[in-house]
């Protein structure tokens, strides 16, 4: 054997291996098993959490990527192999299928008809008192509109007429349409993971940005436009669950164009290849807070004098007795103390005119107006209320593969419809003269759904026989 022959042998066997359905099935099973492991093994948690569950096996499992299965190199390899398998397998088989689809149709053959008829489970047969030619014409006329291709042929030695009818030959291409769809989905997914990114931005009303931090936080991407958040609104159902979140935004293009839009859940903003999704919201610092300073009095005495303020964040105000100033410096809508939720809280910083007295940082809880009494100051500061303000959390995605994936979806669905629901149907009618009458035999064949087609064959034969019976009179 020459080296060249050897090489072509090796290439040939690699192609055969890549083209085999055995490989597809094997890859399907590997993909399924890997997916099972990716759902039952907790994914992407802290090493300590994994170690707690798997102990000694942690190191090996981590090295093999079992805690991030869907991004593991071997998982990606299986997908690539599957794509290669689909391409090689389909391109190897397509010519043969195209030949069948394009062929002018099998020649009617009396011997083949007889063998098919004897094997068929449904074999309609009847004789009529009409001429062979009339019967043949009637059959062609009846089958014509029901099939896409009809060939009628006189058999040798006056043995009669054989009519071959068929339709749906192109449906044999259904599997290829599915495979093309699958490849498009894989290609689109790959394109998205290479050239796309996803990140999130958080904007309070009035803020704007043209930068996005990608999920995981490792990169900052620049948007092809600037996004201004004009307002955010959330509505609730009666039972308190959120009904709808809306971000009212203005998009400022680099060329000076701008437009306004509302972003809602399920109604993203798509612009210049970037999509912005309403994904979350939360409470931002309120614009103003209403505070009350109550003069401290001894127990038993009349309640102290109260002074009310409406203050903005970081705005300095004089204390009611003029001994210094205060300002609200922080807001937390859900402050935790000792691991327990204490509701909304603000941070008030009090500075005194007396240089000897250090500034005080005081936590004021909205739900507990007497909390500040612990400070033992001349005043008890309490916050009565505030107008809540929300920030909006937007998910930002750039995925140039989505179009390809959707095209793949359309191919997949169309291919499934063709390959699973339609079939290549063939029907033969043989007419010959027997005892002075014309005998008609019908047999059908299909590449799928034999049961339904048997009944279809029966129905067609019955209708045909009825037509011929009518011609007898």
């Amino acid at each position, binding site marked *: 054997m020459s080296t060249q022959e050897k090489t072509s042998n090796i290439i040939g066997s690699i192609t055969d291996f890549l083209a085999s359905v055995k490989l597809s099935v094997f890859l399907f099973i590997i993909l*399924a098993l890997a*997916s099972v492991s*990716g759902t039952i093994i907790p994914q992407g948690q802290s090493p300590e959490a994994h170690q707690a569950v798997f102990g000694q096996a942690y190191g090996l499992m981590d090295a093999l990527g079992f805690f991030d299965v869907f991004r593991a190199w071997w998982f990606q390899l299986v997908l690539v192999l599957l794509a290669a398998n689909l391409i090689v397998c389909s391109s190897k088989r397509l010519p043969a299928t195209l030949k069948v689809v394009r062929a002018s149709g099998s020649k009617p053959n009396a011997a083949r008809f007889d063998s098919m008829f004897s094997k068929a489970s449904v074999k309609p047969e009847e004789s009529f008192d009409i001429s062979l030619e009339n019967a043949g014409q009637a059959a062609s006329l009846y089958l014509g509109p029901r099939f896409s291709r009809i060939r009628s042929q006189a058999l040798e030695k006056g043995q009669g007429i054989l009519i071959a009818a068929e339709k749906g030959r192109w449906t044999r291409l259904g599997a290829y349409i599915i495979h093309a769809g699958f490849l498009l989905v894989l290609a689109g997914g790959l394109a998205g993971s290479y050239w796309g990114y996803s990140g999130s931005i958080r904007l309070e009303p009035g803020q704007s940005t043209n930068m996005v931090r990608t999920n995981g936080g490792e990169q900052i991407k620049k948007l092809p436009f600037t996004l201004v958040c004009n307002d955010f609104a959330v509505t609730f159902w009666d039972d308190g669950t*959120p009904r709808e979140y809306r971000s009212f935004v203005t998009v400022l293009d680099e060329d000076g164009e701008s437009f306004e839009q509302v972003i809602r*859940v*399920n109604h993203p903003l798509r612009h210049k290849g970037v999509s912005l999704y309403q994904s979350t919201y939360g409470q931002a610092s309120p614009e103003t807070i209403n505070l009350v300073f109550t003069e401290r009095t001894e127990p038993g005495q009349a309640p102290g004098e109260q002074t009310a303020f409406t203050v903005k964040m970081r705005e300095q105000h004089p204390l009611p007795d003029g001994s210094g100033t205060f300002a609200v410096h922080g807001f937390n809508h859900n402050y935790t103390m000792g691991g327990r939720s204490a509701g909304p809280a603000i941070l008030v910083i009090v500075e005194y005119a007396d240089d000897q007295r250090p500034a005080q940082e005081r936590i004021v809880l909205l739900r507990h107006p007497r909390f500040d009494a612990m400070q033992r100051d001349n005043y008890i500061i309490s916050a009565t209320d505030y107008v809540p303000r929300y920030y909006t959390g937007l998910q930002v995605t750039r995925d140039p593969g989505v179009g390809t994936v959707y095209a793949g979806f359309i191919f997949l669905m169309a291919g499934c419809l063709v390959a699973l629901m339609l079939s290549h149907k063939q029907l033969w009618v043989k007419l010959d003269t027997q005892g002075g009458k014309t005998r008609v035999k019908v047999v059908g064949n299909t590449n799928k759904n034999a049961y339904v087609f048997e009944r279809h064959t029966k129905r067609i034969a019955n209708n045909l026989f009825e037509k011929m019976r009518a011609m007898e009179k």
Partner: protein
Amino acid sequence: MTSSFAASSDILSVVTFIYGLAALLYWIGWIFKAPLAGKVATVAAIVGVLGNWAGFGLRWVESYQMGIGRIPLSNLYESLVFFGLVTMTVYLFVEFQYRFRALGAFAASLCFLALAYASLPGSGDGAIRPLLPALQSNWLTAHVATCFLGYAAFALAFGLAHLYLLKKSDHALGTVLGADLGAVVAVISGLLLGRVIFSAFFLLVTAFFIGLACFFLAGYAMTHFLKPRMDRLVARLADKLPDANTLDELMHQSILFGFLFLSAGIITGAVWANSAWGRYWSWDPKETWSLITWLAYAVFLHMRLVRGWHGAKTAYCSVFGFFCVLFTWFGVNLLPGLHSYA
């Protein structure tokens, strides 16, 4: 508010009993060869399915009266009700088309179990709740409707697998019954062990292996000891069934139908996810398990095309595939993910 959704829940509770009655009558009619019981079973099934449609429609109307206005397809309770509706409708179509009732014993039993599970406190939730913003999408309707049409077809293929093996008096019948028992034991042991084992991973693995052990033991016992003693019963049950080829073809058709709708369900789900979260695929456990189910049936379709798998092998695949469906539907709820509602 409590009274406003009572009507549809009441109707659906009655439907549960009617399905239970229909199931009982289908079994009696089949095992004791009582044609009258079979006819009454069909009537009960028709009444049940009409009630199921009425309950579904009324729930839809009630949601509008409550000012929520949504199609009832968004939590476990509603998915179970919809499964009953679709499965029974498709089954009755098969009964009238193919003129046999034995499959009704399986279909009505499954629908009864689904609706009974729906009415269990805690498992399902009869209250009509408003939709979170992400669920307010027409893609959701398309996604759930197509998925459950697929599930219904797979459920019928599961029933047909048993009928086919009965008709053939096939050795594989014991194996399949062993698998059924193994699955039930796995679920029960999973529920019991859930009080002791807190890691979802170890719970699932333990329950799986208990089920597997049970499958081997029961499968062996059925094929070697019980089957020879049950041959008369098997012959009696197989008596009125359509011929084996018809059952095989019908089972295959159901799988094809189910596969088509499962594909549509996965695709519409992906499109919905992309419009709600900006990602069409995120390897969420429910997504991943629907893909696993899809792959299982895809393997079967390829083996049928290339190796000509049919008969007992189709039956095995249809039983195995249906277990995947059940895990996708219920088992995945044990795992963390986005699909916690259904």
